[in-house]
């Protein structure tokens, strides 16, 4: 693929970077990234990946845009209320960069469709809002050998880590099993500061671009946590759990499965 003059200008700040260059920008153009959840985390990730020129970006979300989303989900605008999130997100991404092909997956990701969904992509961004989905994505990506970025946000706090097959621990190494329903609050119950999704979702986009281009070191084996009130980032080293049920040497989880649906998490945030 040769760059047009417009593309040279559009991507000039990337191409100038030694770590990206012409080759890296070409790789970005050939990259395929799936974003699960077009919400607080997925919104900034989708915008940055579209702006970067990632060739194919999938967005999976079954929800429609609600007024209460707009405080943080910056890919959606006031006139989008009521519209499927994947459609609203797709329109903004294509407006930013017509080079990008957007796959709109208007579905709830579940054990029945997750393997097929992730199979078409090089890298997955978990921008979901509930533990069932986070464990499902972890299991599916580990089983499929698919690198992905996990993130979670609540109140003034956020955390993220990257899983690469054969390297570092997975999300299940850290948290083993989801907490019982309502034991740990989600954003809809506890609130979240709008810019938190911007900080953490942008870091997820950063990891995707680094993975695609091979630039730098990925956030494997480490949980990066951000406390906005203390204004502190912290890198917490993550050991592998030798008996991890999905990424351990003798895994008991061989197929993705859904944790029982939880009523409070079914409410659209």
């Amino acid at each position, binding site marked *: 693929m040769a*760059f047009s*003059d417009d593309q*040279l*200008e559009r*991507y*000039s*700040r990337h*191409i*100038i970077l*030694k770590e990206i*260059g*012409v*080759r890296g920008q070409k790789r970005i153009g050939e990259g395929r990234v799936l974003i699960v959840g077009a919400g607080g985390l997925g919104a900034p990730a989708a915008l940055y990946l579209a702006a970067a020129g990632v060739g194919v970006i999938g967005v999976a979300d079954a929800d429609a845009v609600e007024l209460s989303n707009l405080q943080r989900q910056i890919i959606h605008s006031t006139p989008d209320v009521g519209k499927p999130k994947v459609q609203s997100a797709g329109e903004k991404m294509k407006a930013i960069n017509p080079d990008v092909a957007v796959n709109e997956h208007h579905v709830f990701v579940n054990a029945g469709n997750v393997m097929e969904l992730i199979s078409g992509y090089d890298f997955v961004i978990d921008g979901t809002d509930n533990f069932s989905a986070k464990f499902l994505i972890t299991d599916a990506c580990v089983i499929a050998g698919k690198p992905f970025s996990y993130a979670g946000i609540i109140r003034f706090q956020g955390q993220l880590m990257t899983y690469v097959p054969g390297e570092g621990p997975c999300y299940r190494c850290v948290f083993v099993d989801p907490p019982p329903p309502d034991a740990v609050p989600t954003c809809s119950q506890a609130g979240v500061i709008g810019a938190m999704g911007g900080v953490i979702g942008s870091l997820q986009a950063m990891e995707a671009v680094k993975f695609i281009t091979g630039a730098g070191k990925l956030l494997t084996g480490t949980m990066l946590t951000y406390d906005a009130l203390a204004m502190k980032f912290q890198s917490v080293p993550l050991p592998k759990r030798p008996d991890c049920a999905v990424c351990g040497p003798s895994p008991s989880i061989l197929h993705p499965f859904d944790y029982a649906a939880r009523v409070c998490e079914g409410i659209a945030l």
Partner: protein
Amino acid sequence: MNDYAIDDSVDITDVVCPVTFVKAKVAIDEMEDGQILSIRMNDGEPAQNVPRSIKDEGHRILRLKDNEDGTYSLIVQKRGD
């Protein structure tokens, strides 16, 4: 005293910073290691900045030739990746 043969040339007088360097970088990228590129650029900012940026990338500057028409030709040998 040209002791080199030009393998390819690129004209970056039709673009402005930073696309000048970007266009040159793309041209270098398409060449083999050791090959020689002639880059035609405008006097002023491009002539000041582009040679330095190319040097920073590890390539070898062979010559900066004044074309005496307000442009310069920078002769560069590609080095590594």
